[in-house]
């Protein structure tokens, strides 16, 4: 074989995730054979039968690269985050949930008890007269059963353990993953720890081909269903909130190509403390008004600011709980 280099030990793990990140890895399709030729997949629950106990048995630093997707929602997620940190030379927060908290992070707009109450008591098809809740330890006739503890807060991976790189996206675009993977395999020098990889330093707007005028100004916000998108004009210029100006490029502007405005899953342009406020200030800079009263009137049309500007990043916000 021409490849004399030792194969990389690669792991992929999901915590509080939907599985879409793992599917983005599977979507290498026929290139899967190239990946397998260059790396030993040592742990990947969606595809491989390796147990937690096998990971525990690995020497520290045994895994070269772990792609960790999903947020940290319960005790099991946190345990795995810490364990994989210990076992991995390079820990990558893969996808929006590990990067910023992601969609599951929207749960931080409520408390654990509010979530349990809705799901287990109030849901309109649920019958639960005794107001039972899932318990970490339950006694059944035959013995006892355990469940992980559901935390009050969702956290990103970086809030639980040290992360080497962030590979953003919901899910990350498979081509970006392959580029990063091939760079690692070829032995290219890696950027400084803490960097965002697999994404551009430019904004979505820089890659977007929709028509925009030099000096765009918005005098009224509209919701996506309120316009007849012409398919060619910048969403902001059509009055629809699009987070393209403040969001990193890298996805191939896929939402806009699907005729939907950007919702910011690739995260803010720079490594900012509060991604949502960065998004908000980018949008406010294109409001066509100077008087406070006028601005207020325009902003009034803006429904659900928390869920829009912080769609993927509530756990990473300065105030990580319900503020609005």
């Amino acid at each position, binding site marked *: 074989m021409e490849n004399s280099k030792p194969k990389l030990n690669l792991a992929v793990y999901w915590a*509080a995730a*939907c*599985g*879409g*990140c793992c*599917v*983005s890895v*599977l*979507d290498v*399709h*026929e290139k899967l054979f190239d990946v397998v030729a260059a790396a030993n997949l040592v742990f990947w*629950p*969606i*595809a*491989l*039968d*390796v*147990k937690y*106990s*096998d990971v525990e048995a690995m020497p520290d630093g045994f895994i070269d690269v772990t792609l960790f997707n999903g947020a940290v*929602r*319960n005790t*099991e997620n946190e345990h795995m985050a810490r364990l994989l940190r210990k076992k991995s030379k390079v820990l990558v927060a893969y996808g929006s949930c590990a990067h910023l908290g992601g969609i*599951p992070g929207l*749960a931080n707009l*409520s408390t654990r008890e509010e*979530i349990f109450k*809705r*799901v*287990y008591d109030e*849901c*309109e*098809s*649920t*019958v*639960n007269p005794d107001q*039972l809740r*899932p318990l970490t330890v*339950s006694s*059944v006739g*035959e*013995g006892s*059963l355990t*469940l*992980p503890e*559901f935390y009050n807060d969702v956290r990103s991976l970086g809030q639980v353990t040290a992360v080497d790189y962030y590979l953003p996206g*919901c*899910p990350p675009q498979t081509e970006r993953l392959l580029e990063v993977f091939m760079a690692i395999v070829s032995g290219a020098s890696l950027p400084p720890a803490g960097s965002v990889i697999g994404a551009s330093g430019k904004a979505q707007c820089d890659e977007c081909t929709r028509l925009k005028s030099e000096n765009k100004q918005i005098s009224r916000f509209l919701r*996506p*269903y309120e316009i007849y998108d012409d398919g060619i004009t910048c969403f902001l210029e059509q009055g629809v909130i699009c987070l393209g100006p403040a969001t990193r490029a890298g996805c191939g502007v*896929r939402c806009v*190509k*699907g*005729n939907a405005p950007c919702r910011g899953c690739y995260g803010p342009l720079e490594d900012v403390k509060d991604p949502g406020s960065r998004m908000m200030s980018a949008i406010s800079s294109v409001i066509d008004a100077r008087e406070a009263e006028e601005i207020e009137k325009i902003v009034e049309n803006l*429904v*659900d600011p*928390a*869920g*829009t500007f912080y*769609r993927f990043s509530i756990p990473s916000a300065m105030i990580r709980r319900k503020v609005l």
Partner: protein
Amino acid sequence: MKQLTIDPITRLEGHGKIEIFLSDEGEVDNVFFQVPELRGFEKFLEGRPAEEVPQIVTKICGVCPGCHHMASGKAVDMIFGLQPTATAAMIRELFYMAHFVHSHIAHFYALAAPDFVCGPDTPKAERNILGVIAKVGADIGTEVIRQRRLAQEIQALLGGHQTHVMLNIPGGVRKGLTAEQRDDIVKTAGGFVEFARFSLRIFEDVVLANKDYVDMILQGPYKLRLYSMGLVDSNNHVNFYDGHVRVVDPDGREHCRYQAVDYREYVSERVETWSYLKFPFLKKVGWKGFTEGNDSGVYHATPLSRLNAAEGMATPLAMAEYNRMFSVIGVKPVHNTLAMHWARLVELLYSAERCLELAMHPDITGSDLRTPPDGIAGEGVGIVEAQRGTLTHHYWTDEKGLITRANIIVGTTNNNAAICMSIKKAAQGYIRKGVTVDEGILNRIEMAFRAYDPCFSCATHSLPGNMPMIVNLRSSSGELLRQIRRDL
């Protein structure tokens, strides 16, 4: 009392745990299948603008995102009081058929086939998709990946991205099809039909021609007499995108046939302290515990239940295969859990044929993609068949169209009680006093579970076809007596 713990089950969407309690005599006393995860979408959808929700709920599951997008899109249409245009409805269904093709292909080849093509007692290292390829030839492996890729590409073309799609907008779709794109899909869908027929031939040659397998399917401890649920069209033919939900009792008599908006008349969910996942049951029959038969409200919502609940398929080749399945098994409804694999292939053929039919429809390239918005009605219910069961999304909004309440019954959730019971039956059938619990027995227990293609099992989209287990044999004091491992 001894306790067997199978934990964690890999290749689950989320994580799963099976607890088997043995009596002091070594017989199976009880089995619990636990889902240790919750994210709480029903709560955090509150406050979101309704038109954003179809894009948010795809994040419930990255394996079947298209199902949530469709059920949600239909619920949101209703919130805005809109019906999609004819072209929009066809584009949605076309997308959805590609979603089914990709999922059913992956499940059969990566998950089901290893047990049959390689055999349930084949050493674990060979009992996977690679083992299947070794038996049937490398060309087929490449072809499986290629067909799944083509199905993903159709979804990406229409939905912007193959996983987290953004096709639906209230009253229609964001994107139409050009004649050229249509021509490509016609060609691809023709290939899907051929590949589905080929897959049924493999099932015929490998499974049906082997008496041991037929005996295992028909006589093994894989039988549950449950109610069967599925979405049907006006002819009571299987439909995945739209129609009425029909439920037949274990004898095949119609129990109910309801519209999406009436689901709460027929389905309720209960809570157990030992699982984060709720347990739906048929409201009019009632919850009688984890028991089977006509008096128990436990039902299943799977490829097999859909075929049981319907009176046929809407496309000709799938109809012939539907008739063949019931005539070979010789009874309807079929209650043999492992027949779900056969039913899934009949559905694969239907999805492929329907995909082709829609692509060839003259109006599929129409430009009328949206019904104009007209006020906010404030409540909407959308039901589709997900690959893994009937999926219901129900939302209420305020006058601005912001969500005030959300209720969701996910495909696999329907089967929560049935899965527990199937695992218990298989465990009782194979774990007996004096029998050593080995690898092969673990796999046979697992097969009961795998047939459902549970959504927490992303196994659907996985490579090797079996699930590792650690079984801890514990004394009643919790002391570890023996451990059986099955790892790579």
